[in-house]
């Protein structure tokens, strides 16, 4: 994957497949610590210990169309290549947290990329799920929360094209500052 935001899109899709109603994508991008830390949390159906032990092996998937589950192994490889790591905590019936760290100054650390488009894509695919995105630097924190959008939109769904376009614009503005 050429961007961290593409990994995040792929890893967050797992949360939706697991039936999550709430997904949080938390990033800390610290020059001071030379670290990019990412956590993707969900309240989906989780994984049992046996599956959890196998998911970072590239031949594990519970999908039926194809034998290869590559998302988590790719994310892990990307993190480890930079001197970082990937860890997963999961509890059946409770949820899953995937944590990854990247050494920020390492040449192989992908750029953050288009996070606005990743969030818009997630909302488009699961308009009833609540997404929280937080991006923290040494200087400041920006946050986006679909529950706030929903209060304003009332009964209008988040995946209406004009709404998605508004969210994209709003996120682009947030990310620029």
């Amino acid at each position, binding site marked *: *994957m050429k961007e961290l935001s*593409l990994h995040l*899109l*792929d890893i967050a*899709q797992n949360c939706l*497949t697991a039936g999550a109603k709430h997904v949080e994508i938390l990033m800390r991008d610290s020059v001071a610590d030379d670290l990019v830390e990412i956590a993707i949390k969900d309240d989906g159906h989780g994984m049992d210990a046996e599956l959890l032990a196998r998911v970072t092996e590239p031949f594990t998937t519970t*999908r039926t*169309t*194809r034998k290869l*589950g*590559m*998302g988590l192994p*790719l994310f892990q490889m990307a993190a480890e290549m930079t001197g970082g790591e990937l860890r997963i905590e999961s509890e059946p019936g409770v949820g899953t947290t995937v944590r990854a760290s990247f050494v920020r100054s390492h040449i192989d650390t992908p750029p953050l990329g*288009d996070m606005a*488009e*990743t969030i*818009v*894509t997630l909302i*488009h*695919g699961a308009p009833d799920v609540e997404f929280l995105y937080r991006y923290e630097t040494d200087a400041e924190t920006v946050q986006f929360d679909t529950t706030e*959008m929903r209060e*304003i*939109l*009332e*009964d*209008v769904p988040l995946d*209406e*094209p*004009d*709404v*998605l*376009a*508004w969210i994209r*614009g*709003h996120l682009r*503005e947030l990310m620029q500052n």
Partner: protein
Amino acid sequence: MAKTIEELRAIREKMRGQIDLRQKGEDNLRVVVGMATCGIAAGARPVLHAFTEEVRRRGLNNVTVGQAGCIGLCQFEPIVEVYAPDAEKVTYVNMDAEKAARVVAEHLVNNRVVAEYTVGAVEGLK
């Protein structure tokens, strides 16, 4: 921010009228973009964006754009399927944003399948 919240409210009021219209439409077209790992890595996200934006820009209320998991033809990603009433599913392969815009203009608007982008055309080359 206050101004943009106003914009969001305006969208809400506009949408309320249109949703009713769309649900009554019978001739719905459905576009589905494969968004599994292989699709995302191959560039599916900008393809999805191109479809949603073109459809929105042209005001094509009879078209819905959705996402699917792995379609099972990873070497041909990004893959897009178009479902129309009374027609066979059309599978477009090796898509990008420009091709998506052309599929909207020719297939979704004018009902002419862009044959050269279909899986049949690509497999025929082998």
